[in-house]
């Protein structure tokens, strides 16, 4: 759907990305920062997959009963890679947050800054 020359599905991805970005920069809780990062990643994946779809197309699985046009397979493969990287980043970040909490008793950035 296009409104004022702007593709609304792409615009929705931008809005979702910015929500995540705001969480990342404005929240002081480290878990919320990681959640914000995940929201940003989800927005990027949604954007890439949206770009690969085609009007009235079938999924790129070429079995009997499907017909061209097919959605582009490359964005799907790329997003699969991206999801794995996102999972890895989240896992390492959460493990570090667990360590921070164990050592300092807090995961709030503004409290961590006050520590000697």
């Amino acid at each position, binding site marked *: 759907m296009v409104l004022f020359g702007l593709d609304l599905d792409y615009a929705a991805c931008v809005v979702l990305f910015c929500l995540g970005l705001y969480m990342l920069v404005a929240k002081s809780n480290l878990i919320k920062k990681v959640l914000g990062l995940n929201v940003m990643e989800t927005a990027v994946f949604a954007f890439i997959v949206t770009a690969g779809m085609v009007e009235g197309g079938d999924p790129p*699985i070429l079995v009997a009963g499907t017909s061209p046009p097919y959605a582009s397979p490359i964005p799907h*493969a790329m997003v699969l890679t991206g999801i794995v990287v996102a999972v890895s980043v989240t896992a390492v970040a959460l493990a570090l947050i*667990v360590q921070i909490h164990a050592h300092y008793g807090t995961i709030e950035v503004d409290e961590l800054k006050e*520590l000697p």
Partner: protein
Amino acid sequence: MRWLGIALVFVAAATMIAGVADLPVHGTPDAPIHRHVGARYLEHGVAETGMRNMVTAVLLVYRGFDTFLEVVVIFTALVAVLALPRGAGKAGPARVVSPSGSTAAATSDADAVGPQQADVPVSPVVFFVVRLLAPFIAIFALASLYRGHITPGGGFQSAAIFGALFIALALVFGRERAARLVPVPARVWLQALGPVLFALVAFVGWCLTGAFLGYPADAAAHAVREAMVVTLEVGIAVGGAVILAQLFMAMEG
């Protein structure tokens, strides 16, 4: 700080909206994303790879290096998480010398609630539902692996379902009983199964075709090609599932 953040978000939003406005409307069949290499894969993919699911074909054949390193990335994440010291936080809160003593005390009180919450008995409904559904979830994961070349699915999806199943079991039955599903000696090898099998298949491909991670192209070698792809998928699924389970187990605070 808050207003700086909001300003940053608006600048980023304006930049991205300006970039997105120039893109072709999504879904148009003649957009660049459908014309270049994607169209070629769809046209020759079945003949060249013998696979029906083009996403799997792109993942394992055309962009095999990408997937190889992707498997290495998640394995590296596991290594990084396991390299962190375990259980270092038992004496932790005593080391907090904070000027705002009240907030530090409050957080350590909140911390004390954590282990008790874990001891709360699981609701019988949750217990029954997880027990009832677990075999079906496992069959779904296997089917998504086994039918991955002709239906949506494949190794990564199967790994995600298996990992989620393990986490559900660990939450209901407790970590100790869930950890017994994969004994430690098996775990050491299974967590590296993805990279190991990928390297093995890449080496076999190198011996057969002279190209690292190459696949024999002639029609007679169809069975060899199939075996290589199945090996990769199994490595991704089992290795990925064990890595996800290990990551969950390592998150103990």
